[in-house]
């Protein structure tokens, strides 16, 4: 990165965690778990008198992280990508602004992962639905009368909570109430069919817990937290999505994210974008943003990438609770395409 003229800040980080967890209950559970995490990331920032642009790899806001060992770090091949992101950061300074309009939007897999996190993971937390987070993180638009009725997304959208996903930060043997890790459906063929639950909240709906209670340390109580909330792979590919698009924008790597307290009205920005015109990738665009309303957005999803482009994205900064807790969760995602999306909020 240092050899690229115009780069003013270069950053890199690695994180390794070994957590020993012991759970015992008067119901007879005695569970011992040892959990490992490894993560790394690099970032280049370029500045001019009136602008600042950055690019990072493999994800933004620190690093990409997984439940794995050092092999996870070497597989990232950070050195192979360093020059590219540095050049992109510098090129963004002179790139045109992302145009405003209603267009086809193609998201890379990492931004799709954050979209899942904010607009599906959080609103399906059943403690939020019951008001336990109302004074802090908020509530949810996905209220119980909508269960099995709300067409949350198009038929391309199937989202699972899977605590058994290899390398996921939400992967474990048992949750912090002693419930075994499991895979359940939240959204099936677009229909809202399930919540993330605990023993207490599941019983209100006459259900069994699906094992999502986790505390972020010895001095915090368990809360309902996302496990690995995954958008199941589709049958498209990024190249195919681009080739089928007449007038669109491709956006990559999150730069900013914001969503209302019911998880409906969102706005995201990405570090990098390209215009997509008549099936081809065009000019690089800077300051790209898009906005929408959750069910409208997911119902406009007309393509999801296949298994070859599907990857598990670790997210190690999920905040919730009073006193605050930070959970490590993950999202399996591939690139995805959405129609009629408002882009270019920043003029």
């Amino acid at each position, binding site marked *: 990165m240092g050899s690229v003229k115009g780069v003013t800040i270069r950053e890199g980080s690695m994180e390794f965690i070994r957590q020993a967890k012991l759970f015992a209950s008067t119901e007879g559970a005695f569970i011992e778990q040892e959990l490992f995490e490894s993560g790394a990331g690099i970032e280049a920032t370029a500045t001019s008198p009136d602008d600042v642009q950055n690019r990072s790899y493999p994800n933004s806001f620190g690093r990409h992280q997984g439940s794995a060992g050092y092999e996870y770090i070497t597989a990232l091949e950070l050195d192979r990508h360093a020059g590219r992101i540095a050049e992109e950061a510098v090129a963004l300074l002179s790139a045109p602004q992302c145009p405003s309009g209603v267009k086809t939007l193609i998201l890379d897999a990492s931004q799709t992962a954050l979209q899942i996190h904010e607009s599906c993971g959080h609103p399906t937390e059943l403690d939020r639905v*019951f008001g336990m987070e109302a004074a802090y993180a908020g509530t949810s638009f996905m209220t119980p009368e909508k269960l099995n009725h709300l067409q949350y997304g198009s038929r391309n959208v199937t989202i699972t909570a899977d605590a058994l996903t290899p390398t996921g930060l939400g992967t474990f043997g048992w949750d912090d109430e002693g419930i075994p890790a499991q895979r359940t459906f939240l959204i099936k063929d677009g229909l809202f069919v399930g919540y993330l639950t605990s023993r207490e909240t599941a019983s209100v709906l006459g259900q069994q817990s699906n094992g999502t209670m986790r505390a972020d340390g010895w001095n915090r109580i368990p809360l309902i937290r996302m496990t690995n909330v995954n958008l199941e792979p589709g049958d498209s590919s990024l190249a195919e999505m681009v080739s089928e698009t007449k007038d669109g924008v491709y956006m990559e790597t999150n730069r900013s994210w914001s969503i209302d307290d019911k998880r409906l009205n969102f706005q995201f920005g990405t570090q990098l974008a390209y215009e997509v015109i008549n099936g081809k990738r065009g000019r690089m665009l800077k300051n790209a943003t898009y906005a929408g309303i959750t069910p409208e957005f997911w119902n406009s999803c007309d393509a999801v990438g296949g298994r070859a482009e599907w990857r598990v994205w670790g997210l190690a900064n999920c905040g919730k609770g009073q006193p605050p807790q930070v959970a490590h969760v993950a999202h399996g995602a591939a690139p995805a395409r959405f129609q009629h999306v408002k882009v270019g909020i920043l003029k």
Partner: protein
Amino acid sequence: MKSMEVVRLTDEAELKQFMTRLLQRSPAQETEVMVTEDDSALTRFANNGIHQNVAERDATVRVRVVKDGKTGVASINQMSEAAAADVLKRAVAIADLQPRSEVVPMPGPAAARRVDAWSDATASATPEERADFVETVCAKAGRAGLKAFGAFSTSAGQFAIANSLGVYNHQRSTQATVNSVVMGDAGSGYADRGAIDVRELDKNELADEVIDKAQRNQNAQPVDPGIYEVVLEEYAVAEMLEFMSFMGFGALAVQEERSFMRLGEQITGEQVNIFDDGLDRTGIPSSFDFEGVPKQRVELIKNGVASGLVYDMQTATKEGRQSTGHGLPAPNTEGPFAVNLFMKPGSAAKADLASDIKRGIWVTRFWYVRVVHPKASIITGMTREGTFLIENGKITRPVKDLRFTQSILEALNGTLALTRSTKLQVSEYIGAARVPAARLKAFEFTS
């Protein structure tokens, strides 16, 4: 029987002895030890009832060593002699593994002015006292046909820092904070309070504010997005200041060319004066920073002109000047941080802020604010729990929450009025801001 709470903090003489012994046994050329100790409790409520009561006591010992031009930092949450030996050994081992590089200099001794940030009443607050406060809010909400949610926390702690160049500073502090959302069938309200002394938190005043807001914010209807004249309550103004601090008040942000601060230039309206003062007891004071440097008052924006920045040892050394006492704990790549923020009040009464507005928006608070472009000071976020339409000088109806995408500097450039009263807002993350409510000429709501 009522519980008797006794704050459990280590005696200062014992703490100083522990730190001195750790410094004495260090083999490094320079060593710094920082100890934080907290004894805190929180009562959380939802649907008009308490659902969570937690309390914890924790301590952190953080050691920074500089050995042969290499730096190592390690921490542990125990204060035994064995723990001290372990954390020191790990800090040295980390330093030995580093390449030689730029070393952040440690400061020499300088007396920090003592500032009283302690309240016995807060330190000894009982679960019953927190429950009594919560009961008032829930009962009043219940009588109004509403549901209350929130959290009430009280904490006592101490923070001490010493280094091998002779620095030793120590401070005890307490804090009490309460926030509440009250909901009806078709809308909600919000209020919060924070203070050093728990007795300053008035349960009836808070309950009345949040219930009144909830009652007025029922059945909100949408309003078209666009540019509106606005009244921002103190909750929203404080959040803008916090984001200004995050994006641009630190010297590192300017040195790295990512700040909106253009020193000497007019960057906001003339009515805007923002400063940082760690010694002002109307904030949440702290007399020295995480490097042991005494706090200085820094004028950040004076009459709308970018006037100053906050410095830590690294950024000050780079410019050949003194640190202003705004360092964060090592290792720190974020640079110095202004955490004791103040915005100078104006002369308006809050009740009159809307009186000259033909058509505008009244905003209670912001939610989920994020940086869109730091150098242009552009943020996005939502309004929450009390957004109202102003027509011909009066609040006429609640409107659905709006998303804004707005440059803070441009918004403050249109400052038309500031209230003479101010409110202390304790940050969710670090520090606090004391601010007035504001009337601004133009604010862009994007959806």
